[in-house]
């Protein structure tokens, strides 16, 4: 009570639960749209012009752009900084596959530096034109071994023949085996050489041998009901966007929902509510606040998404310009992400925010001081968190029944359904159905929230318990 009286001098007037706040119908309704417009405008402008908002937006934008450039930069630098790997070859095996010393070194040099055998491992010329591997033919294995030990030489490859006439390769290196990427490559060449050597000893011609290497015809047919006709790159991009989208939705709904709750508590704490409520109805205030903050959030999100997509799209041309050819490996095909997926992301963001913001506003209206907001919204945060975590579990099992059921519960739809869409396991009717369910839920929550809000905003007494809340919600 002591604390209260500093805030509220007329201490005995602490309204209790029986308060019947008016302003439900009546005269202020005349200008509903105009008032909502004004309140929305104020909220939006106030939010967007805030220095903290601008600064945090810029920082996040920079991080997004940097994030998009990191893989390219890494690719560029690894391609450029490749120091030559010096290999000495000592051949004690005589001609191998008909190749004598010089020809053999030549063969190894070409195959190691060419883009032939090895699959995913980046090979090839660096931009400077220096070959990745420099081979020299040697004779004295012992001296060369010493050089490897002293790190004057990177690799020593000794070849000889065993009693069965097969070529034996001995690979000397100073690099620890866990980070030695060269060993695998050289091993591949070695087995290739071994193969050629054996087949030549069996009397096959070079052409016959190479025909042995031709890949068989191999077609994959998916028989699952949802035939995912997307290419690997597109599928990966779908996952990627859904993944980023879920994080984006979670963060933004939480952050902006919190902003709504804090905003309401702030207005209540600064007593401007008493003036506002004389000029506009609680419903107008609630809607105006949510739309205003939502619009500010959407502006920020749009900037982030556009910057992110723009930065990603820049990467392929950039790599081509830097390296003279597009990057190897599996690229995320962002351009292939359908507009539909992005629109779904937008739709789920708007719906998710609307749903949670109404509840955040109602909870914000119940606290007495601003610093209590964090506690008051905890149950709501938990609820949202469940869907967030479940959506990550759903990546591995997008078709599990419980995931499908959860994806239709409006509080979890924005996260889980989005992930399912990304996984490509959604029937055509599922998204529209989830949207309808969400809209119904939003209306229900908004009605409930408007009532709690109406009571809460002028309630400066103790925080009402669940029973009082129910009574508020039931009151006309």
């Amino acid at each position: 009570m002591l604390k209260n009286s500093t805030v509220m001098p007329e201490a005995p007037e602490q309204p209790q639960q029986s308060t019947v706040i008016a302003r439900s119908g009546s005269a202020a309704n005349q200008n509903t749209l105009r008032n909502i417009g004004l309140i929305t405008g104020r909220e939006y402008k106030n939010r967007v012009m805030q220095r903290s908002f601008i600064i945090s937006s810029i920082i996040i934008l920079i991080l997004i752009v940097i994030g998009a450039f990191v893989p390219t930069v890494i690719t560029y630098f690894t391609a450029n900084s490749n120091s030559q790997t010096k290999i000495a070859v000592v051949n004690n095996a005589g001609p191998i596959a008909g190749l004598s010393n010089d020809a053999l070194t030549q063969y190894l040099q070409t195959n190691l530096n060419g883009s032939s055998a090895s699959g995913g491992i980046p090979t090839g010329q660096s931009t400077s034109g220096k070959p990745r591997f420099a081979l020299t033919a040697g004779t004295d294995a012992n001296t060369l071994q010493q050089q490897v030990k002293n790190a004057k030489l990177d690799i020593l490859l000794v070849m000889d023949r065993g009693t069965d006439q097969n070529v034996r390769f001995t690979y000397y290196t100073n690099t620890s085996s866990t980070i030695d990427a060269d060993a695998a490559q050289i091993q591949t060449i070695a087995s290739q050489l071994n193969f050629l050597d054996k087949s030549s000893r069996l009397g096959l011609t070079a052409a016959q041998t190479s025909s042995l290497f031709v890949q068989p015809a191999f077609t994959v047919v998916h028989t699952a009901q949802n035939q995912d006709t997307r290419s690997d790159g597109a599928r990966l991009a779908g996952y990627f966007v859904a993944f980023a989208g879920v994080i984006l939705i979670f963060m933004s709904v939480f952050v902006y929902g919190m902003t709504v709750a804090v905003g309401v508590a702030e207005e209540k704490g600064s007593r401007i509510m008493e003036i506002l409520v004389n000029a506009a109805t609680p419903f107008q205030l609630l809607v105006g606040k949510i739309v205003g903050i939502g619009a500010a959030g959407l502006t920020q999100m749009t900037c982030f998404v556009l910057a992110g997509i723009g930065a990603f799209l820049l990467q392929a041309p950039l790599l081509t310009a830097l390296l003279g050819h597009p990057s190897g490996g599996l690229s995320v095909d962002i351009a292939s992400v359908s507009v539909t997926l992005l629109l779904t992301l937008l739709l789920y963001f708007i719906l998710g925010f609307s749903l949670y913001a109404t509840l955040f506003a109602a909870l914000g209206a119940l606290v007495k001081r601003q610093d209590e907001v964090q506690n008051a919204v905890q149950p709501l945060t938990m609820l949202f968190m469940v869907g967030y975590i479940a959506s990550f579990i759903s990546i591995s099992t997008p078709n599990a029944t419980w995931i499908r059921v959860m994806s239709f519960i409006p509080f979890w739809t924005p996260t889980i359904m989005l992930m399912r869409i990304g996984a490509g396991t959604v029937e055509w009717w599922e998204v529209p159905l989830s949207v309808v369910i969400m809209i119904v839920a939003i209306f229900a929550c908004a009605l409930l929230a408007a009532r709690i809000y109406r009571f809460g905003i002028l309630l400066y007494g103790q925080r009402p318990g669940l029973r009082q809340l129910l009574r508020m919600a039931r009151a006309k």
Partner: protein
Amino acid sequence: MGLIVEHISKSFAQFRAVDDLSMQVKEGSIFGFLGANGAGKTTTMRMILDILRPDSGQITWDGKNVNEIPRNMLGYLPEERGLYPKMRVDEQLLFLAQLNGLSKQAAKTALDEWLERFQINANRKKKIEELSKGNQQKVQFLATILHDPEILVMDEPFSGLDPVNANVLKEAFLEMHRRGKTIIFSTHQLEQVEELCQDVVIINKGQSVVQGNVQEIKRQHGRNVIRLKLDDDLEALWLDTLQGVRVDKRRQDYIEMHMEVGFNPNRIVEAALQHNARISLFELVEPSLTDIFIEAVGKIAQPDAPATSNTLHVSTTVSA
């Protein structure tokens, strides 16, 4: 017609904040609303504004229930600061004026006029939190009147103002009065009530205890207070033995006493002369509103009520 409050009651759980209160505020008058802290002033004001609804009874303006009159006819100045602390003065006032139905252009015109009159034009681009308390209160006042409401309901508009700013506000009050607005305001500074108001109501524990025209109330309470100063005898202890006179306070500058009905004040002068005293002050005074207030409310003093202190100003600092 004006504003008529008829038998309103309002309870919060077990607590009865307003109890069968009736009062009438004439259109175009300045009405003082007095009462100790917790007497039910704010609750009554909120009911007049239709922010709260009475449990029983009704409040009408020109015969219409207050929940039916357009919002922008009312201007409300809450007891505590009710502004966005981080918003600029001009943006804030424009927003509130527009929310109360003014067009953007009309709001700008009104804003320019009033900022000039209140001498805070230099502060128009500042944030509220950067202003002094007095200037904040001025802005709060502007937020109440900018949309030109007919009825002004102000909860302690003078609290926290220095004499200079209080005067500026008083001038604005009179300006609104000249424009025919009806003003209801609560205060603890009773001189302001005596200076500004035609009518007052004093409420205690939610009930009206004294009500009516300020001059009439004073007359009713009669000219039964006497002030006396004797140059060579500040105590004048013999007064205590005088029949029909009751000494209220002995101050450094005078002694104040009550006399019974029918007591002839000349007898005090006679008695003083008998004691060979030199009279430097003898005055029959009207009771101040402060006295009436204390008489009406003080007997049933609340823990933090102002009744125990000599002047009522103290209470404003308590509530601030």
